[in-house]
């Protein structure tokens, strides 16, 4: 899916597939390494505080794998949206499990606050409508 240019012959196909696989493993391991010590969903041998808060304790090992998968997915989305790849790794590392799940599901549709000044745009639209003759708000003012 990531290979945008299909290889022309069999040899290059094999090698690009292999390098793709190697890249995936390298990415996987580097995310795994980076996340160690940054987020301690399950520090070795310790039952975490969160397990008391959420009465039900989930299998910590499963959680960690899920977390790595979500991190990789959200990181890829952020990079695709123009975030610096190195920063994307740091950014996803500080998200909680819930936040990761939320972004993983619906990143494109979540509120992304960024507006500079909307009133001005509305005013321009109203003015255009007025000039075109659709409305006559301003004559009454």
């Amino acid at each position, binding site marked *: 899916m990531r290979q945008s240019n299909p290889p022309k012959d069999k040899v290059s196909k094999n090698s690009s597939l292999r390098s793709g696989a190697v890249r995936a493993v390298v990415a996987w391991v580097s995310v795994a390494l980076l996340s160690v010590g940054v987020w301690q969903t399950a520090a070795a041998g*310790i*039952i975490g505080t969160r397990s*008391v808060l959420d009465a039900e*304790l989930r299998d910590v090992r499963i959680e960690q794998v899920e977390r790595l998968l979500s991190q990789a997915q959200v990181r890829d989305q952020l990079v695709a949206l123009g975030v610096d790849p190195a920063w994307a790794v740091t950014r996803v590392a500080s998200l909680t499990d819930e*936040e990761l799940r939320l*972004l993983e599901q619906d990143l*494109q549709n979540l*509120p992304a606050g*960024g507006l*500079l000044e909307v009133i001005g745009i509305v005013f321009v639209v109203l003015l255009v409508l007025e000039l075109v003759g659709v409305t006559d708000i301003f004559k009454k003012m």
Partner: protein
Amino acid sequence: MPFFPQADYQCGPAALATALSAAGQPVSAEELVAEVYVPGLQGSLQPELLAAARRRGLLPYVLRGSLEELAAELDQGRPVLVLQNLHWLGPPAWHYAVIVGMAGADSEVILRSGEERRRVEPLWRFLRSWDAADRWAVVLLEPGQLPARPDRYRYLRSVTELEASGHSSAAHAAYLAAEKTWPGDPVVRAGLGNTALAMGQWKDAAEVYSAMLAEDAGNVLAGNNLAVALVELGCPATAVALADRALAALGAEDRRRPVIEDTRSQALSRQGPREPDDCRSYGDVSLR
């Protein structure tokens, strides 16, 4: 309080810089762009603003969304970062701003918004845009500060997340503050023990867990984590005994079983000929 005017679409970094600086973590909006801005969305996402605060050891506390609660935070001198939806019969238009006060007998809010250092908005207009953004508002607490109207679950959830992100000492301070408000709370006690453990304060951690076990000998978290602390304190035999007892009390399918088995084998591998007598001060409580 410093103010950072926004560049194009960058109200997220600008508002966050204002809130972080007020919480004692001065940073410029430009520095935050790489941390929270998403170019492809021309904006910043709420979870990423919270994450940026956590990275600095601050506790982001999302308010329940009442105006009274917001005013109470302002009364404590804490600015409130809010999401607004400034849409006008069109698609959503998300905008972050920081409320720094109220005026006109509470009929107006004072905002740092966009390029304006001080923008006074009638309350009704602010409420319309805030309602349309599900009344999202957050305060950034310094370690040990409680929100003006603390909600136990919201607060503790945020603290456990700060703890999990590796900020043990900040989380420890937050648990200490929580202990005064909710004395004897099981989450707070576990958190005090676990943050002490994470900081390598084995004795403090062991005392917290021992006290928990004295009240409830079947507390699995306290049993296992005390065993971890005791291995570090040179008491592996007591640790093995604790782990054995915890395992005996667990069902075969219990998901905590592998963690405790891990602890037990760690303790076994550290066992020497004889452990010091003071190990029994923990053991006496837990191994009766």
